[in-house]
């Protein structure tokens, strides 16, 4: 861990004590060696910043008066520290895993200037409603974007809701599993009630590249990150969590919240929740919006309720404060 490392707030030793309520023979539960976390400085991104980092892009007016919203996104090969002492040759959008969280409003024109700075051909495939040549798959429209080349993807911001984008080059599973995915949030016209908003992208790293499951599971790029640096929220405040699942090689992911329930809006395409629950499942590409208020202060775990994924890194804490 670097000097400006990720251990703000609580020391790892405190976390380990807290995590182990005693009576387990000193075993403090699933964790990395000595409760260490990765070097966010080396990676160039911090999972805590990724949570609330919404990229609204830059806007201009089209001749018809509508808003054009525009982003520049680059594919970059980057070695990441995915667990303390473990390096992974990731392929990324803009040098981070997950890629940026793009945010737009319903009724806008969206333009993505994509440059491929990676050594491999890539595409950007968006989930949404758009023409075939803007689908970002090989053989259609611009097709595969070769290293050093670029293209422009342009489409309407529809439908409103929570969407995702990922590379669609072959071999597809590996291009996604290497880290090439991100989030696209489209606001409904009427907006949503004000809330403490955050995004979590579920995924994994198959560090052995054998395509047989993953060695590491996480939200927002770094396993156990929110165990060591809990997600801070305020008591009684509305929390809105944009949750997507980009996990490869394993069929189903899930999200479970301790000590609380949440309203669930599948894909975020309706303004009425479908369910009030504490556990939901998502297959690959599935996503939804969770809304909750914490009536109690303290630490509440959240994790995949597939325990294997949880203990291989996909777990964290909310820390509720007054």
């Amino acid at each position: 861990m670097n000097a400006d490392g990720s251990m703000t707030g609580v020391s790892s030793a405190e976390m380990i004590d807290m995590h182990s309520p005693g009576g387990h023979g000193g075993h403090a539960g699933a964790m990395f060696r000595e409760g260490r976390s990765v070097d966010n400085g080396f990676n160039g991104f911090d999972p805590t910043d990724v949570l609330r980092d919404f990229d609204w892009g830059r806007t201009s007016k089209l001749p018809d008066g509508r808003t054009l919203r525009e982003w520049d996104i680059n594919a970059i090969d980057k070695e990441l520290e995915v667990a303390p002492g473990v390096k992974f040759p990731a392929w990324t959008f803009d040098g981070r895993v997950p890629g940026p969280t793009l945010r737009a409003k319903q009724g806008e024109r969206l333009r993505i200037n994509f440059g491929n700075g990676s050594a491999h051909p890539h595409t950007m495939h968006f989930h949404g409603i758009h023409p075939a040549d803007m689908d970002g798959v090989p053989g259609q429209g611009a097709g595969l974007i070769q290293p050093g080349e670029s293209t422009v993807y342009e489409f309407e911001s529809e439908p409103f809701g929570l969407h995702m984008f990922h590379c669609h080059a072959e071999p597809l599973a590996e291009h996604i599993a290497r880290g090439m995915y991100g989030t696209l949030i489209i606001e409904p016209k009427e907006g949503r009630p004000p809330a403490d908003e955050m995004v979590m992208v579920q995924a994994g790293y198959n560090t052995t590249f054998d395509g047989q499951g993953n060695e590491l599971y996480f939200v927002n790029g770094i396993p156990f990150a929110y165990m060591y640096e809990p997600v801070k929220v305020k008591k009684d405040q509305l929390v809105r969590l944009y949750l997507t699942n980009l996990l490869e090689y394993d069929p189903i992911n899930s999200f479970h919240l301790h000590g609380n329930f949440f309203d669930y809006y599948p894909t975020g395409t309706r303004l009425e929740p479908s369910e009030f629950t504490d556990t939901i499942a998502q297959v690959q590409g599935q996503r939804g919006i969770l809304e909750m208020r914490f009536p109690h202060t303290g630490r509440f775990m959240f994790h995949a309720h597939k325990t294997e994924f949880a203990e291989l890194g996909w777990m964290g804490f909310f820390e509720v404060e007054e």
Partner: protein
Amino acid sequence: MRDGEGDSALSRMPLWAMALGVLAVVAAVLVAIGSFGGDTLPERKGPPIENLAVEKTVLEPGQIDLSIRNAGPDEVSVAQVIVNDSYVNFSGGGTPIGRLGEETLSLSYPWIEGNPYEIGLLTSTGVVIPHTIEAAVETPEAGGDFLLSMILIGLYVGVIPVTLGMLALPLLRRGGRRWTSALIAFTVGLLGFLAIDGSLEALELSALGSGVFGGDALVFLAAGLAFLTLSGIDAWMKGRRRKSEKAGASGWQLALMVAIGIGLHNFGEGLAIGSAYAVGELALGSALIIGFAIHNTTEGLAIVAPLASEKPRIRALLGLGLIAGGPAVLGALVGGSVSSDEIAAALIGIGVGAILQVVVQLIPAMKDEAGRTFTPVSTAALAAGALALYLTGLLVTV
């Protein structure tokens, strides 16, 4: 070739100077290849080759200790450890492990007795090196109790039965030359079986090891060295006897060589028992102890076979019993603490070499009055010896 000047200059040079000259040339060429040769060849492509062998697993409540060795060509860093699909806290192995380097990892994990565990060592490059614990059982501590158990096991299966076997000596003496050669044939059959059995066991064990020290080759090397060493000792003893003009006293010498050979074999036997006990895989029932005892009583018989025509000396006989049986105690102690399957295999290989050497020595002693080695009686006795060990061996599968 024979032109006078140069030849005579060379021949006048002292031998040591010539040897030094040759060495200097060889060294210079090797240094040159070492320094510049590497650059003339392409570098190896592809990722590092990471290979770790878990040589010993020690389980204590809430903790699993793994002794690991780098058995591959490249450096390995163990970054994280997975036990049954969960990352666990651990200490040790904080620095990269070089080729042949050793490390001990202490894993904090609340294991449950009898459960299997799949351990994954996640290296700095993301490779997962697996290790399986078939059934978790607490490892006995190498304290006083353990020491006492191992000494007792060694006595039961080694010293006592071998000494018991020697009680057959009075019978032998009554039987005469024909019986003696038959009994020696029986011994050869018995030892031949032990040699094969030991070889198989050593190779089986070496297959479990990392192979970093040569694996099977190390077993054969150990056997060969043991054979040569004992041959040398035997030749040296014969030479001394000739000097002291006691050419007739070879019965005791033969018995001593048999005792040493069997002793080295019993070391291997103790090793197997000790290591099985240490990992909790040994059911120390009375059936096993009795099985080993019967098995090893035949070995006592083998030792006294060459002594049929010698004067019995009780202290010397007890000494032979100790030489043949005592190493079982030692083997059990070592087996309970030795950390490498490969080393254990090599130790058993030593026993095999020793036994083969004894067989070579005993074959001339099989001759009957007419000087024939293979007679109907001796071949039957050979077969009986092999069968005796095979059958008693069935009682004792560790």
